Every structure is written in structure tokens, then in C-alpha cells.
């Protein structure tokens, strides 16, 4: 196995694009090294992308943020502004693993690992984040929900790297939240995860919403009917019931040791409702 640590995106893309064998980008390595160790993957080339400036920075851009794909969970938490603007995203990223994992794990890695249960992904989708992708044919921006297409499967072409995430300027009266359910209090993989972002008008009526579910399908889902259950309402009991029903209806989960299909379907509705109430509280304050 070869190891390269380029300091430019162009070099990283060229290395990954020109390697005929299995090549992997290395950010925090908290998934990659485990997969190498357990022989799930056997790359001939690993390209460490942490030496590339854009990938390691959080910058304010166009009224929003550009968050480097290789910024760690601990660094997201320590940023003076990001958590107050997009708390749901930062809280979701901070749910991944232990303190030790937070010192290394990144949102770019969480997305590109391709797990349907990735915690930061539904939060990014709910917030309407875009992935800025660099590749042999240049740069492109795609909604985060279009990056993963199935377990361990991404819509990235050979040589493409998720370089950063673009977070739009947060509209007035907008709040986001992410909740996940696990069988214990820390250090586990989501049974269900739910991200909600919503915007209110001056009188408290919901004018825009996005709802995303993780761990209930072959990839994180953007659930339009769940958003529609909220839009035009003051998030009253009837709207929350419709939201829960729409979230549950969108699930097509598997049975596994963490939960049965029926359980996940039920919990998805409960979490959507709770996340919406947290997002509502936050939207009222800003």
C-alpha cells in the first residue's frame, strides 16, 4: 500500500484518478482504518487529504459557511460561530463515537463512508447543505442527499473527492435539530436518526421545512411529505401527528440487532416529532 499526502486538491484528485487499483481518500481514518484492519477493503493507495488547506478550514462565505470535509468533530464544536447558527449539524457530528473519535472523525468521512446510519448526514440534508466535490473534470456542487446512493455506494466518479460542505446563510426564524435513538446513552450506531430544519414567518407559521431520516433505508432520506406536513401550519398537534405519520411511512428499514423494522418505523415518527419541536424552539429565538 502506498501513502501520499498531497497539499493541493489537484494533486489529490490526480493521484486518486490515475491509480488503476483500489484507491481511498484518508481523512480522520476512523472508519477507513477499521475496514483495512478487518480486510473489508485492501487499497493499494491511500491519499491523506488532511494536508489540503480547504479541507481543514471553516470559513464564512456568501453569508453562510464553507466547512472543510476533513474538519474534525472536535473542531466543529470549538468553532465560535458555527454551532450557534447550525446547532443541529454540529450536534449530529458530535454524536459520532467517543471523545477520541471526535478528535479525528470528519463529516466528509462520515458521508463518504457510505453508511445509511451516518449521524451527520441527515442533519446536513435537513439544513440544505451542498457538497462541493473536486474531480478530474473540475468542481461541482450537489445536494448532500444526492451523494450517497446505497450502502457503501456513492455517486462520486473515480478521482472525485468531497472537499467541503456549503451551508447556506440561515434565513430569519430558522432552526435545525438532529436526534438519534440508540440502545444506550453513548457510543453506538443509530437505530434511527432524524434531522429537521424549519423556517417560521413573523406570526409563527412554518413557511419552509426539510426533514431527513437516517438508518431507516439503504441511504439517508430527504422526506418531502414529512416537510409538507409542517409547511403552512403553526406546528400544532395535528401537524405533528401528520409529520410523525409521514416520517414513519417513508421508512423502508431492515431488521438487525439494534432494532426491528416495526420498531424503527415507530421510532422514526417519534424522533421526527421531537426534533421538529427542538427546531421550532430554536427558530423562535432567531
Amino acid at each position: 500500500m502506498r501513502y501520499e499526502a498531497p497539499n493541493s486538491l489537484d494533486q489529490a484528485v490526480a493521484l486518486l484518478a490515475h491509480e488503476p487499483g483500489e484507491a481511498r481518500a484518508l481523512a480522520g481514518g476512523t472508519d477507513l482504518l477499521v475496514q483495512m484492519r478487518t480486510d473489508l477493503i485492501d487499497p493499494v493507495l491511500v491519499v491523506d487529504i488532511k494536508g489540503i488547506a480547504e479541507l481543514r478550514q471553516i470559513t464564512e462565505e456568501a453569508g453562510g459557511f464553507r466547512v472543510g470535509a476533513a474538519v474534525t468533530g472536535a473542531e466543529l464544536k470549538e468553532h465560535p460561530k458555527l454551532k450557534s447558527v447550525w446547532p443541529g449539524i454540529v450536534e449530529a457530528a458530535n454524536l459520532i463515537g467517543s471523545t477520541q473519535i471526535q478528535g479525528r472523525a470528519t463529516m466528509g468521512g462520515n458521508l463518504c463512508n457510505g453508511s445509511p446510519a451516518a449521524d451527520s448526514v441527515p442533519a446536513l440534508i435537513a439544513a440544505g447543505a451542498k457538497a462541493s466535490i473536486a474531480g478530474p473534470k473540475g468542481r461541482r456542487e450537489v445536494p448532500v442527499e444526492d451523494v450517497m446512493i446505497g450502502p457503501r455506494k456513492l455517486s462520486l466518479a473515480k478521482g472525485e473527492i468531497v472537499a467541503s460542505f456549503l451551508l447556506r446563510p440561515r434565513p430569519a426564524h430558522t432552526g435545525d435539530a438532529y436526534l438519534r435513538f440508540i440502545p444506550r446513552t453513548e457510543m453506538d450506531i443509530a437505530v434511527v436518526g432524524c434531522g429537521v430544519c424549519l423556517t417560521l414567518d413573523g406570526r409563527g407559521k412554518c413557511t419552509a421545512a426539510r426533514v431527513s431520516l437516517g438508518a431507516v433505508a439503504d441511504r439517508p432520506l430527504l422526506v418531502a411529505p414529512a416537510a409538507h406536513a409542517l409547511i403552512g401550519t403553526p406546528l400544532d398537534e395535528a401537524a405533528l401527528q401528520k409529520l410523525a405519520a409521514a416520517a414513519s411511512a417513508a421508512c423502508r428499514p431492515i431488521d438487525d440487532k439494534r432494532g426491528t423494522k416495526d420498531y424503527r418505523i415507530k421510532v422514526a415518527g417519534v424522533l421526527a416529532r421531537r426534533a421538529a419541536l427542538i427546531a421550532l424552539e430554536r427558530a423562535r429565538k432567531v
Partner: protein
Amino acid sequence: MAKHHVTATVNGDAVEFLCDTQETLLDCLRDQLGLTGTKEGCSTGDCGACSVTVNGRLVCSCLMLAVEAGGTSIGTIEGIARGNELHPLQRKFIEHAALQCGICTPGFLVAAKSLLEKEPNPSETQVRFWLAGNLCRCTGYDKIVRAVLDAAAEMRGA
């Protein structure tokens, strides 16, 4: 494939070693540098026995390639005591009997020291969440948490 030549700082001392690409920082600390205080538990980042700091950040050394450590400053369990003088955390672990078999202990100490550098006056909840990635299968968690809180109090001069 030629080996990588890695230079870094470990517990304040300049070190250099040769490693294969797939070797982890944990492998090299133990096998190249002879620093066997850092333990291998699960090798998947779940147990925290291999905890070290890299540029001040607590990490699992089993989840980092050794070649990634080039140019970094690494802190291990061997750097915690000052000569024969134990760190307050080490003394409190002994006083509270916060260890049985001892395999998890270096990881707990490195992780706890990292917490107290960031938060000198942690609540019990903060200690428990910070140490959630350190597993003790002799199940001494309560004693460990008490030892950390007691050490924190002593270090604050309380």
C-alpha cells in the same frame, strides 16, 4: 516498498523511526519506540486502551497510521509522571483502587488528563461522557470517576 521515515516528538523528546504504510501509530509506539504503556485492546477505536494525544488532541492510536504522525507532538502514558513523582491522577487511581487488571488504565489516565487540561472542574456527567470511549471490563467505572473528580479537586487546590 520502502519504509517511511517518520520524525515526531513523543513526551517532549524528538524521536524517529521507520514504518510500513499500514502500521498504526500504536504499533510504532510499542514496537519501534518501546513505549509499551499504550495498550492494544480492540484495534477498532471502541475501547480507548490505546489513547494518546496528538498535537494536544485525544485520539485512538490504533486508528491512526504511523506515517500520519510525522511532524506531530505525541503524548503517551509514559509522559504523565515526572520522574518518580506520580501525576495526581495516577495517585488518585491508586488511592481509590480505580484499577484491577490495569489494561485500560493508561488509556483512562491519558484521556482523563486531556479532560482536566480542557476542563479543570468537570461535573461527574462531564467525566462520564468524556470517558465513554474508554472501556473497563473489570467494571471499575465508579471508582475511576471518583478518582478523576478527586484528582481534579486536588489539582485545583480545592
